[in-house]
């Protein structure tokens, strides 16, 4: 339904909960937990791979206030395993976990669960549990994991639920191969091949609210779980699987969430208090420390990406051959699925390519399990492919923007590497043109020496993502007309700060021609909400938003039908303007909305409530072009992003303010990944275990971020909308890496790029005599 003038959609409306959040209202998990909750904490393994030979809890259990201590002895070691990944049937992530496993597989894996009256007694008990570990050889380098002698999951009750090429006896969590066209021929016929290996690390979502959950037993003896989660319905299944109880006995509710970014698409914290409360029938809660959130959580998959990109001398890209090796860590959460995006959401940017090949392996190691993080594999893939395209441009002495102009995908073209889907809506060409203009690209590219020991330089990157998982993700909405004519919208999608409670209400308000304030929104509760796969995979606006639109349209029809009946006309003779239903022929014959609402609640056998579910057989990609402008100190290597320019095509921005902040926030996370967020394992232990070592950008660390929109119109989306949440994190890494090359003359193939490496690059260039690029050669 396209309208010339929209009243609610595309308007920068305040988030419905904005003032409550800004004023510190007690709306998060820990704020609403009962005060008599048992405190749950976990004893974690100090070894990356070990078997628990003995575990003695006798003394610990005697600490006053301790309610219960659980070890592997309390869990059937031959029972059915489960995954903590929040995914739709058939679950791609292997069933490889037990709540408590005698075999601990990373530093931080759980050896015991302790529950007690207060933190002090629980801490005391944790220190008194005696464990004798039998240390096993760990696999710490993911390049050596496949077919290694040491197996991360040697057990026979490991199960792969879907045909993803997994084999625990080879340390393989997944393997896949796909291609189109003759890639070997395309590469052989190319004038130039960029053949490079890129490495990205297991960076952390670092949402401000750590993982947390509280559990109670309700009136009916059911387990009620209140958790900071993006996926209430998946959570219900995961908890039931973990505890081995019927799903009907579990209810999961999401209050406000203090950020997720994919971290909370895995049930990282839920199963432990669920286990305690189910066993003790007492309320319990777990609050992860920041240390635990940094060392035993669900970060991005570390990947090594081998790109071979073939092109002609004139810049035409002929083919891309990508091999991705992904490190899922000790457990397979999101392992088989993240890796796919590294190829399927990077290669299709280049529409001219006549062939591609994409092969991937996902391996187990004795690192903490990886999970879902905004961008979900596309971020890693785009760092590699976009960096290769930047290198191609400089090898050919061409402007990287010109190489893009020649090769990018356009609306109406087939995208073989994007699951063979059509490019149904795309303003990438306009994004590119606009970002050049905005950033002053032609004047600033590639670099200028500021004469004060500093160099200013620019770099470019493109990005795409998806809008939900094709034919898998499901969004739903229930809309009701209530007394006096206000509406309630019930959803199963999770507003985690993104503002979907508001943006989905905007979609409904547009259809129902009312104010967003006339729509009360509720989400999400597995007992009340309609089924929704959850807020991830950039699905909420495109998939759930469409469900809301369909739902509102049907409710609108039913309001007209009842209104027409009240004034003694047929529905086709009447119109609705949001406030009343009236005769098209004679406006004085009308029924006010409050009258219609009252009629539906008095002597009526027709409730004015509609439930709609929607799934899409395409996943229209949003696109983006980003330019980083850096200022780099030649002596110290200190680099500052003085400006980041971004132009995004998310289709119609349903709420331009919130879309813009999504872009700004995603860009900042991308900058962190490129320049400061490092993950270093030593002996299987993560060194960056707090915000002291793991440096997410502060506001003092960067200049300004400039975001604009160039919108295409996606016919399958609500009012032309696609997604925004993930596409925005992908351009900083390749743009910054190329800007640093333009400044210092050295290519960087690993993230983050540290000041030490940059200073060394400048020093090296001083020594070897200043050959910055091959531009001069050609």
């Amino acid at each position, binding site marked *: 339904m396209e309208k010339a003038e929209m009243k609610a959609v595309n308007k920068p409306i305040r988030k419905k909960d904005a*003032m409550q959040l*800004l004023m*510190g209202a007690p709306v998060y998990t820990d704020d609403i937990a009962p005060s008599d909750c048992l405190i749950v904490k976990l004893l974690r393994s100090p070894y990356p791979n070990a078997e628990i030979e003995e575990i003695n809890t006798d003394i610990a259990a005697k600490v006053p206030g301790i309610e219960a201590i659980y070890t592997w002895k309390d869990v059937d070691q031959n029972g059915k395993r489960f995954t903590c990944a929040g995914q739709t049937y058939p679950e791609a992530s292997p069933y490889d976990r037990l709540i408590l496993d005698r075999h601990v597989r990373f530093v931080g894996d759980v050896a015991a669960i302790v529950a007690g009256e207060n933190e002090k007694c629980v801490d005391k008990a944790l220190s008194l549990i005696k464990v004798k570990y039998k240390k096993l050889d760990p696999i710490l380098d993911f390049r050596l994991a496949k077919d290694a002698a040491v197996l991360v999951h040697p057990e026979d009750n490991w199960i792969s639920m879907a045909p993803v090429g997994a084999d625990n006896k080879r340390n393989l969590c997944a393997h896949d191969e796909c291609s189109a066209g003759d890639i070997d021929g395309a590469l052989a016929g190319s004038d130039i091949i960029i053949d490079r290996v890129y490495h990205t690390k297991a960076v952390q979502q670092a949402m*401000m609210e750590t993982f947390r959950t509280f559990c109670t037993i309700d009136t009916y003896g059911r387990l009620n779980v209140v958790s900071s989660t993006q996926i209430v319905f998946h959570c219900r299944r995961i908890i039931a699987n973990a505890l081995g109880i019927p799903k009907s006995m579990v209810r999961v509710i999401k209050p406000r969430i203090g950020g997720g970014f994919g971290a909370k698409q895995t049930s990282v914290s839920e199963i432990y208090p669920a286990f305690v409360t189910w066993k003790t029938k007492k309320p319990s809660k777990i609050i992860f420390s920041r240390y635990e959130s940094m060392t035993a959580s669900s970060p991005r998959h570390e990947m090594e990406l081998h790109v071979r990109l073939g092109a002609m001398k004139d810049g035409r890209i002929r083919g891309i051959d990508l091999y991705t090796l992904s490190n899922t860590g000790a457990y397979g959460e999101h392992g088989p699925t993240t890796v796919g995006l590294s190829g399927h959401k990077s290669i299709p940017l280049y529409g001219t390519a006549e062939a591609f090949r994409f092969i991937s392996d996902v391996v187990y190691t004795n690192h903490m399990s990886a999970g879902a993080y905004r961008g979900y594999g596309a971020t890693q893939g785009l760092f590699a492919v976009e960096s290769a395209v930047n290198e191609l441009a400089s090898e050919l002495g061409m402007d990287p923007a010109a190489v893009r102009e020649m090769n990018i995908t356009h609306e109406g073209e087939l995208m073989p590497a994007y699951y063979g889907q059509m490019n149904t809506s795309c303003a990438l060409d306009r994004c590119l043109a606009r970002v050049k203009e905005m950033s002053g690209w032609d004047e600033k590219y590639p670099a200028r020496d500021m004469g004060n020991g500093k160099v200013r330089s620019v770099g470019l990157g493109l990005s795409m993502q998806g809008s939900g998982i094709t034919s898998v993700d499901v969004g739903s909405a229930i809309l009701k007309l209530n007394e006096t004519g206000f509406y309630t919208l019930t959803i199963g999608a999770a507003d*985690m700060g993104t503002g979907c409670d508001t943006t989905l209400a905007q979609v409904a308000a547009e259809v129902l021609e009312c104010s967003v304030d006339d729509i009360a929104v509720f989400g999400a509760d597995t007992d009340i909400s309609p089924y929704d796969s959850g807020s991830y995979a950039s699905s909420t606006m495109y998939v759930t938003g469409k469900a809301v639109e369909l739902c509102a349209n049907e409710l609108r029809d039913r309001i007209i039908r009842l209104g027409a009946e009240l004034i003694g006309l047929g529905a086709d003779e009447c119109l609705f303007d949001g406030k009343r239903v009236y005769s098209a022929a004679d406006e004085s014959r009308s029924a006010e909305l409050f009258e219609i609402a009252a009629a539906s609640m008095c002597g009526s056998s027709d409730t004015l409530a509609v439930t709609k579910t929607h799934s899409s057989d395409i996943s229209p990609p949003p696109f983006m072009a980003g330019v980083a402008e850096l200022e780099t100190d030649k002596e110290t290597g200190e680099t500052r992003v003085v400006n980041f320019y971004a132009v995004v095509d998310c289709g119609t921005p349903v709420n331009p*303010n919130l879309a813009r902040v999504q872009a700004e926030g995603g860009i*900042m996370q991308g900058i962190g990944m490129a320049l400061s967020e490092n993950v270093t394992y030593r002996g299987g232990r993560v060194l960056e275990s707090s915000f002291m070592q793991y440096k997410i950008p502060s506001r003092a660390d960067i200049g300004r971020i400039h975001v604009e929109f160039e919108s295409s119109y996606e016919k399958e989306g609500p009012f032309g909308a696609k997604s925004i949440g993930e596409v925005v994190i992908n351009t900083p890494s390749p743009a910054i890496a190329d800007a640093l090359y333009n400044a210092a003359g050295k290519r960087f193939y690993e993230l983050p790029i540290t000041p030490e490496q940059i200073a060394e690059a400048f020093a090296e260039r001083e020594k070897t005599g200043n050959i910055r690029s091959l531009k001069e050669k050609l």
Partner: protein
Amino acid sequence: MNIEITVNGKKLRDEIDADMMLIDYLRSHGCLSVKRGCETSNCGLCTVFLDDKPVLSCSVLAARADGRSVTTLEGLRGEAEEFAGFIADQGAEQCGFCNPGFVMNAIALFREDPSPSEEKIKEYLAGNLCRCSGYEGQLRGIEEYLKWKKQK
């Protein structure tokens, strides 16, 4: 040990453990706007005023506040609301978890310097981390607020 603290204008007397941190004391007295985001004094979420000076309540012993007065966001309604509206108008509150600490410290800044430069704003609030917004919308909101304040 026994302490006496004035919290948001109300005198409280309590028997507490000597190692209790101010954040836990305040949360146990219903000041739930005070949030914990780290254990290393890095994130700024737990910012409150101790005798009108912003402090990280995760790093101050409750006993240190004995005989002094503490203000949390719950005690700053009018002043905070006036400013917060400008952040809401940018959509920069996002998940909201860092908001109370950020709002507290921003108010401390405005009290100290009614017309801070962009550089001063960034420097003063550098210790208030936010993972959602990229800070840009917060900066726009602050700039709009200061503009409005000047015109008023």
